[in-house]
């Protein structure tokens, strides 16, 4: 019997949960996420618009964090990239940033908090 290649098995397993069409955005982008929410029998699409401030992990386990200002209060949400509930992600605005995690957005207030640069 061949040696157990755990890495290969893990990658093979993750393959079935990967998105057919990869999401196309980078950290710093302002995105509009359509997220399917199921309440009992009914399901509806909820929109979440904000700035992508971090991406973590790889493969099927990858997640991204979106931050938005809601009535002056910062709201952050983490989505799994490969979640079947994410129906669409639209890039509203692209912004070039020099960090892979732009946590400094958390310290900003007022108008600066809603835009990267």
């Amino acid at each position, binding site marked *: 019997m061949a040696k*157990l290649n*755990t890495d290969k*098995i893990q990658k*093979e*397993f*993750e393959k079935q*949960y990967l998105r057919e069409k990869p999401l196309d955005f980078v950290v710093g982008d302002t995105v509009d996420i359509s997220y399917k929410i199921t309440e009992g029998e009914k399901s509806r699409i909820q929109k979440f618009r904000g700035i992508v401030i971090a991406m973590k992990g790889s493969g099927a386990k990858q997640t991204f964090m979106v931050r938005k200002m809601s009535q002056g209060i910062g709201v952050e949400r983490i989505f*799994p990239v490969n*979640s079947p509930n994410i129906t669409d992600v639209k890039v509203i605005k692209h912004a070039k940033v020099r960090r892979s995690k732009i946590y400094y957005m958390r310290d900003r207030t007022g108008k600066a908090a809603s835009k990267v640069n």
Partner: protein
Amino acid sequence: MKGLIGKKVGMNQMFDDKGNVIPVTLISLGPCVVMDIKTMEKSNYSALKLCYEEQKEQRIKKPLLGQFKKAKITPTKTVKEIRFSSDKEIEQYNIGDKIDISIFEENKPVKVTGITKGKGFAGVMKRWNFKGAPASHGAHENHRSAGSVGAGTDPGRVVPGKKMPGHMGNAKMTVKNLQLMKIDAENNIIAVKGAIPGCTKSLVIVRQD
């Protein structure tokens, strides 16, 4: 109760129908070859002797090699007996048969048996989840101690079974009622919800009713 021998691959995650993330452990299972059949009549219990992972002939001890030759199967690293509840369940198998993952059913609980990771000589906080001693308020040099181990002159001894420091882990352990989330018959892989004992590539036995 039916079972197979396999190896732990490691943990991963998957999405269910609702899109929830579910933590799973991947296990590479079987295929196993039947070496011997134990029946009520012959041995007073029902079991199958299963062989897992092929091995070169020169690496097997001679007494065991004789058993392989008698059953006319290729020698393997591991030979384990798996108990069945009655003779009826093992009627269908003959010596030399290959059993693969298809005997399991999805979305039903399984039991996973393995050897836990060794923790060495562990204190009471790690081994028995004791609270330890206060961090401050005059406490010193005994923050992780067990405290009192019993009463005074009466009974004048420590009760048997008192939880104390000692060797932890590296012991056989069974986790029951783990949901079998997915079966990949092609690659002989199953995904079980939650964690299982042991390190990656350690031997496990998966059983299902």
